[in-house]
């Protein structure tokens, strides 16, 4: 009978959870429906037109994902170097890293893209549109990630360093074998997070003519003055991309947060 009680309680709780989730989903559905209705009324979707252009717009999706992926990759490398500079004892490396962070976090991404596109050629460095976008995004996100990586390194408890040192490890070994692996787990979710943000910020490279999602949506809509419809499609696609990648990002985060290798807690 007692085990029955436990089961009953769990069932009741589960049932309440189910009801709650159902109500939650229904509400979401209602909102989405209301939003769609509102859009249909205001924007007067022309389904023939959208069908005609959808493949053209969707061709931008791989470009968007490619730009975001490759940029987050380079940004992570830059951030690793930047964070190494920031935690190093050398005032020179520190200054270089801190300048980098300050400058690229201190100016708008849009401006950075324009700069690399328009000013660097005058110094003989001519990057085509796509590399321009990638370089700008990498530099910009690299600066933000530098600070994240640095705080990741600093988030490793000082006791870890002390334990390593008291085992006779050199600073180098301590850093490489003890600090970095732990910092890595701390920052991985942040990289995922920035990747999702990058998916959207990559839309800025449309200004230099990279034919990604937003560019294509605008190009498709303008000739017939139907930008709103194509922008709407783009918004939906971005939204879906974000939801999909956030889902993976959340799983990553949860995996990093729990599991066997979380920092121990006393008591």
């Amino acid at each position, binding site marked *: 009978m007692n085990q029955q009680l436990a089961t009953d309680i769990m069932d009741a709780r589960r049932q309440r959870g189910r009801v709650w989730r159902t109500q939650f989903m229904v509400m979401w559905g209602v909102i989405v429906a209301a939003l769609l209705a509102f859009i249909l009324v205001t924007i007067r979707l022309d389904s023939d037109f959208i069908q005609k252009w959808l493949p053209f717009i969707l061709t931008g999706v791989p470009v968007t994902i490619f730009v975001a992926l490759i940029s987050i990759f380079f940004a992570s490398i830059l951030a690793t170097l930047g964070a190494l500079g920031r935690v190093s004892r050398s005032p020179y490396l520190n200054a270089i890293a801190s300048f980098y962070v300050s400058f690229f976090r201190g100016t708008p991404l849009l401006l950075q893209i324009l700069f690399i596109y328009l000013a660097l050629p005058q110094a003989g460095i001519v990057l085509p549109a796509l590399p321009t976008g990638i370089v700008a995004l990498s530099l910009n996100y690299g600066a933000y990630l530098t600070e994240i990586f640095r705080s990741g390194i600093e988030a490793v*408890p000082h*006791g*870890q360093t*002390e*334990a*390593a*040192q*008291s*085992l*006779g*490890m*050199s*600073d180098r*070994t301590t850093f490489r*074998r*003890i600090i970095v*692996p*732990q910092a890595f*787990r701390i920052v991985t979710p942040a990289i995922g997070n920035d990747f999702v943000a990058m998916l959207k910020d990559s839309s800025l490279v449309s200004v230099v003519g990279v034919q990604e999602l937003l560019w294509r949506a605008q190009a498709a809509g303008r000739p017939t003055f139907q930008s709103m419809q194509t922008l709407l499609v783009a918004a939906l696609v971005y939204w879906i991309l974000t939801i999909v990648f956030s889902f993976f990002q959340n799983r990553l985060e949860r995996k990093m947060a729990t599991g*066997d*290798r*979380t*920092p*121990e807690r*006393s*008591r």
Partner: protein
Amino acid sequence: MTLQHVVHPAEIPGSLVAPGAPPILQATAIEKYFGTARVLRGCSMTVFPGETVTILGRSGSGKSTFLRCLNFLEEPSAGVVEISGVRVEADPLRPRHEKASARIRQLRLHAGMVFQEFNLFPHLSVLGNLIEAPIHVKRLPRKEAIELAEGFLAKVGLSEKRDEYPSRLSGGQRQRVAIARALTMEPEVLLFDEPTSALDPSLVGEVLKVMESLAHEGRTMIVVTHEMAFAREAADRVYFMSDGEFVEIGPPQNVISDPQDERTQDFLARFLRA
């Protein structure tokens, strides 16, 4: 100015010390300032091989600071530490250069440390924790390091937790792993900083048992602790610290059971009354 080490009258070799053996650890006139606060006021200590000594004292009296000065986790403001022949002088006015750092690392190899908060490496398995330093500091081949580690794991009674991660262990088990980890470097002296304070009372016993067996085995140990029973039973000598000074030194039957210094009396009275 070369500091002369002075042995306190009460610092006579303990029962397990080989006759005529020279001290294995000498800390001479250690001073420590944090800013202008004088936290250690000329603390000296002499430990012979095989001895277990304990440091008692109020919270904030400087026990941890002294212990950390012994292996330069904290740089002393003045004084000398010599452990099994490696002598390092405090040199706080200059930045540490490569040679000094290497010397300090040498010193640390002779003095293993066990922390209150265990400080196990959470990203490594129990075995990983134990072989990391032997492989990357002593450059042991992996296979040898594993053999060595397994021996010490068996000694602390955790052979079956070999592949577990620290987060899956109880506090007592973690601390035992930490002790085994310190042992893998085969240090001449083991330093313990309140190794049972972060433990649930019912888990204290298993850790103390390991420590006692180490003491009986003839390991040289310096233990900061609040466990009076351990101090009384396992220690050759007790140092009572008050305000950064060793105000009373002697065998536990004297210092704990029959304290002479007023501050020691006061501490023990307060401490034992609860």
